[in-house]
């Protein structure tokens, strides 16, 4: 009954960013491989589940979309608590939305420390000619705060999959690291049960396949 039951990981990912930067489109593109399509099986694009299997590690992603309006900003902590990863989306043609991302990063670092994996996504690269957020600035900022930076276009299906894949790998790695740290920490005090290392052992088994 730990965070990773039966060798599968459960990760919660929140999408944060100003309204109209395309959070929902990115989400839909990833889950249903559709862009604002009429043939969606799910009509609610606020919560979506995705099962992936990287190299034998089963990962269940629960992706939560959040409201981007400024008036709902204060509700952020309710949404992002206990989440393993956050995708911060901005619109490359909108400088304000990048400023908003910086705010989110500051807030997340303050509230969750390094427990959360951050990925910054510059969306709408299909509108490259209208770019207002300088490429170098965005990337060097992401570097500085220890987040990966991706350019995406939900419209052209660019970078979306890479973004989620990278995020997932990072979360898995961090989870394993933490689990190991937990084991070593608890084993020094008292070895109670070997529940915690379960994911790693299972995964190593899967690697042999």
């Amino acid at each position: 009954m730990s965070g990773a039951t039966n060798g599968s990981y459960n990760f919660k990912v929140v999408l944060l960013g100003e309204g109209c930067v395309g959070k929902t489109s990115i989400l839909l593109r990833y889950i249903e491989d559709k862009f604002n399509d009429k043939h969606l099986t799910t009509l609610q694009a606020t919560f979506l589940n995705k099962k992936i299997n990287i190299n034998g590690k089963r990962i269940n992603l629960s992706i939560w979309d959040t409201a981007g309006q400024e008036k709902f900003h204060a509700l952020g902590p309710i949404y992002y608590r206990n989440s393993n990863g956050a995708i911060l989306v901005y619109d490359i043609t909108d400088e304000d939305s990048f400023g908003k991302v910086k705010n989110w990063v500051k807030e997340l670092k303050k509230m969750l420390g390094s427990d959360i994996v951050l990925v910054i996504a510059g969306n709408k690269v299909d509108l490259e000619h209208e770019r207002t957020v300088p490429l170098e600035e965005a990337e060097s900022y992401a570097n500085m705060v220890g987040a990966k930076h991706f350019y995406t276009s939900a419209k052209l299906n660019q970078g979306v999959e890479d973004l989620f894949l990278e995020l997932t790998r990072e979360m898995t790695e961090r989870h394993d690291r933490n689990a190991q740290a937990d084991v070593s920490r608890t084993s020094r005090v008292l070895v109670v049960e070997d529940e915690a290392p379960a994911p790693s052992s299972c995964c190593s088994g899967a690697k042999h396949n």
Partner: protein
Amino acid sequence: MDGAYDEIISDNPFFVELKNEYTNLFQHCISQSWVVCVPRIGSLTTRVFTVEDFCAHILVPSDELPETNYSTLTEKQVTVSNKVIILEVTKELPLQSHILFEETFYTEDFLKYKVWCIESPLEPTRNVGDNTITKEYLTSINDCIDLLWTQAAGRQVLDQIEQSVQVFLKKQPSLPIAIGPLKDAVSELYTQCLQYALQNRRLREKSKACKQILENIKIAVECYMQQILFDALFKPICTCCSYEDSHLNKKIRNMCDIQLRDLDIKKELYHAVPKAKQILSKIDSYNTVLEKVLCLKQALNAINKKDSSNNVVLLTADDLLPVFVFLVIKSGLPNWYSQLTYMKEFRFSGVGRSDGDESAFLITTLEAVIEHIQSGALAGPPDPESYYYESNLTEENLNNRQRKNSLTESISTSDTNSRDETLEYIFELVKANHTEQIQTILLRNQRHLESIHANDNNMLKITLESDLLNDYDEDDDSGSDTEIYQKLCHPLCNCKKCCSKISKNLLRTSPTVNSRDSHGLTPLHVACIHGKAAIVEILIEMRAEIDATDLNECTALHYAASRGHQNALLLLLHSGAHINQANIDKNTPLHLAVNNGHLNCVKALIYFAEHSRKMIMINSANESGNTPLHLASKWGYEGIARLLIENGAEPSLQNRYNKTAFDYAHNLKILQVLKSVTPNLYEYIHITTSDVKVLNYRNDKNLTFKLQKMTLRYQDNNPSKAVENLKLIDRILKAISYGDVKLACFYMNINYADYVDDSNQLKDSSCHPLCECKMCKKKTESCTEFDVNFSDSNGFTALHYASRYGLDELCNILILNKANVNCSNKKGQTPLHLAALNNKTGVIRVLLDNGANINAVDITGNTPLHDASDMGNIGAAKILISYGPNMTMLNGSEKTALKIAKERVHLTIIDLIEKHANNS
């Protein structure tokens, strides 16, 4: 808790064999991004698979429609829609299989391929294996009971759960009122129930075979337990959350006018809101967390509908939250916080999985919504008038000179439309609290009106000829109103020029203190809506109509009360606003103040009423039959409920739906407040319904005392009315015991002032039997609808109390109001007895002068003289004796008054009685 099917694909024998034994096929499949279908574990009977089996389960996307149309490697056509695979089989019906889930695999070199876990094999000939996969989703308590019943093949598990819940409840007759311990206790019970369930052999084996079943069993056990436990559990939860709930309710009540557009909700979603609201409001009727969460989900799904032009509206988080906020505000549920706490904290089967499943998302969304409402970020209630006035006047541009100029212009030009415009401007000035400007404008307009009035004579002679107006040269347009008349040739002149001046003046329409807009709002209403006490004061000073009503028949007092502006409210009350005025829904200001949770205003209303001797109708019912106490109870306003109860609110009154305030109380705290009055009341009701009471005392001595029936005075079959009267009499008696004659009179609806100014005349009761002078008329007519002979549960009337406490003045008033001087209480005592016992000589005189029976006996046979002798009350004895009582009367112990006095050695009294006996 969403109970979606899950299994580890890489452990599935079908998949393992494909991967290990047919590596080439598998690799090819990956490189071509074909979809691999894997029948779920247990759906295949055999463990031996052929190449054909695998080929039949590999789907190749078609070129035209890669999303929906596929063909298998065995050349069969497959379509996919809404997560169902349909295989076209030539002879039979098409074979269907649900896609249970999709898993995206990435190889080490990051090649991607999709695997669909399907419910049954895509092989029509293949014999389908054990069909133990029960319902994928448990959606109701009945599903849960079904599952436990059928899977365990009998009721025993259900019975065991029920039993352990009963034992649990018996062990803890009152559950702890704190969420922590409560959760721990219930969690322990859940573990215990789950253990019972898994002790069942069949359930244990099945759950071992399939993880899915285990999850479902957990949910079912939890649900069944919650269902039985709910009644006992939810009240304590509500009690824990009562503070949050009442605050949330206050917030919600104060913004109940809010409209969809105020929340920036997309127009395409409007149509779905009523349906969603209806679904969501049912959340209260579900007992289990599972069903409540499902209700949330259904409500949100209801919003995901097609818009009017049949396009699918995709609901994004940006849309979802505002709609949800609206739904919660409009749902009318009084305990959202408790519902949230219940869902959040008492969901045990989901624990252990990550926090991220769909139920967690729904609950979190609800939490976010509640937090959003609670935080007050919703900028308060929109002003009712904001719908028709776009407010563009800020402090800044108010100070702008130009605006001022245009204002004076608009007033001085005699444009008939200027009335609306300037009234609007005044409303905005009120909003911005510009006291002085309002005062100047209104005063000027008033003066203008007065001047017109003063020149009535001239007015009559004026004919409004257009050419006359046109001829007129507008040189003195800027002159003030009073000046106009000074500019006339002569005050009575009616030459062309003068007439036109006057008529121009008459045509000018400018707002006054009593002007109304299209919704019937006066400046006073607007000032009260915004709580600008200083402006309210000015307007009142300028003789604004206090009780002016708008379209909804609301007075300014209604608005002050509903918006919680205590200062404005008090100003209105002191200026004589009608305190019990009902609006179109029969709501009094008290209703509105209570409904919106404004304790300060409720206090102001009640205390003002008490202080000023005005009757506030504390139990008045509105259109739906709700009294203020109903509302306080429903929304959980503990402080207000207590205040109402203390001031005579009656919790047992029923509204139109036959509900009392008790029925609306959803937490123990409120219930306690409501109950704090009732024990006595039920006793009262019991007494009042009994008929004539005859008490035979000591029959052998032939001393029979008929006790006066104390109940006949209100043989009203309506207990609550009787109860109301009883509470009133209690208050009256209390006032008397404090010696507060005025208050007592006020309660009895007697105008005290009528009696004070000429209290000296009271003794000689009337000039002449038929006299009709003011004084006598008062005496005969002053009987109010209140019967002064009401008694409390011990048979004490107001006169008894007045006698006991020696208030001769009040005794006089009561007697004038037809109080029965010889009525007796439960012990058979008349007011005279009490006066004698307490040595109230003044009262004794008044009573005896007004026909009190000097030889009245109480149930122990004592006359007033016995009592006076017993107590050694010399003064009382003296007066009694002077009225010539029968001194030979024996009491119940066969003693005369003299004998008692001797026993007590009250020498003076012995002396008095003996002297009198000798004289007579």
